[in-house]
């Protein structure tokens, strides 16, 4: 489960990699060409965006499931 999700705007260069590969279309580039989470509720916490980001701009915390 997703605990926190943050995109450092100053580090993001708007390459679009995170947007292109998010399986649930959580992300989009905004008017300034920076990545932003537009549907965070759909995030499945796969972490692929944070792993692939060439600018290390995405950080997320995933809580361990308790069941």
């Amino acid at each position, binding site marked *: 489960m997703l605990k926190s999700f943050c995109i450092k705007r100053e*580090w993001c260069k708007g*390459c679009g990699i995170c947007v*292109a590969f998010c399986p649930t279309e959580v992300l989009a580039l905004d008017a300034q060409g920076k990545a932003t989470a537009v549907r965070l509720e759909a995030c499945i916490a796969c972490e692929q965006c944070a792993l692939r980001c*060439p600018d290390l701009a995405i950080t997320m915390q995933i809580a361990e499931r308790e069941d």
Partner: protein
Amino acid sequence: MAIDKYLRERFFPHMWCAGCGHGTVLNALVRAIETMGMSRNEIVMVSGIGCSSRITGYVDVHTLHTLHGRALAFATGVKLSKPELNVIVPMGDGDALAIGGNHFIHAARRNIAITALVMNNRIYGMTGGQYSPLSGCEVLAATAPYTTIDPSFDVVALSVAAGATFVARCTTYHVKEMIDILRQAILHEGFSVVEILSPCPTYFGRSNKLGDAAEMLRGFKEDTVPVGSAAKQKNPELIERGIFVQKEKPEYCAAYEKIMQKARSAAGETI
């Protein structure tokens, strides 16, 4: 986040272009190191010159930024004098296999415990898109306006033939795989080579009309298969990823220590 402590955040945003795969290599490398719980003090990263080589500026471990093609020579000195340290050498394709080709094959032949990364974008990124020994035939480059006629090295086959005892290939699309391979390469007691397919959207991508960074990553997804998969038999054009060789052979620093002991006792006998 836990990887923060391995980064020199004061130098961010970094110098690489939007979508440059070298940033993803940095991302995966610090995560691999973090999952191993290594102390910053036990890692030395040595690089040469190139966009790829700038990676040493961003990691907060011991770092040396040296000469184009010569990183492995400097790293050999570091490792021989302090064999207890983990020495990682990130290189560009030109750095490792054009100007640095001789250092590369001899480091492999000696089986010195160094982790060599070839950040392969098939181009000289830093100097404006000249072709490299990994560009391959029929690609456009600043120095090949009518396409290249030089076949490329197969980094895996070359490394195996030269004597490397851990040889792997991965891509910046398959990051979880890359983290796992990097971890194993760093732990390996011998010369390990990891070729990482890394897009340069600015030069290689643009001159060969491969689309943006995401398109280039899609190419890695479509054009590569896990090593030993049946798909490769049907389509030899596919590039294999994974670990090709992982074996034990006498390691250079250990052999050097033995010979030093022999020399010391011989000297002791004569005194």
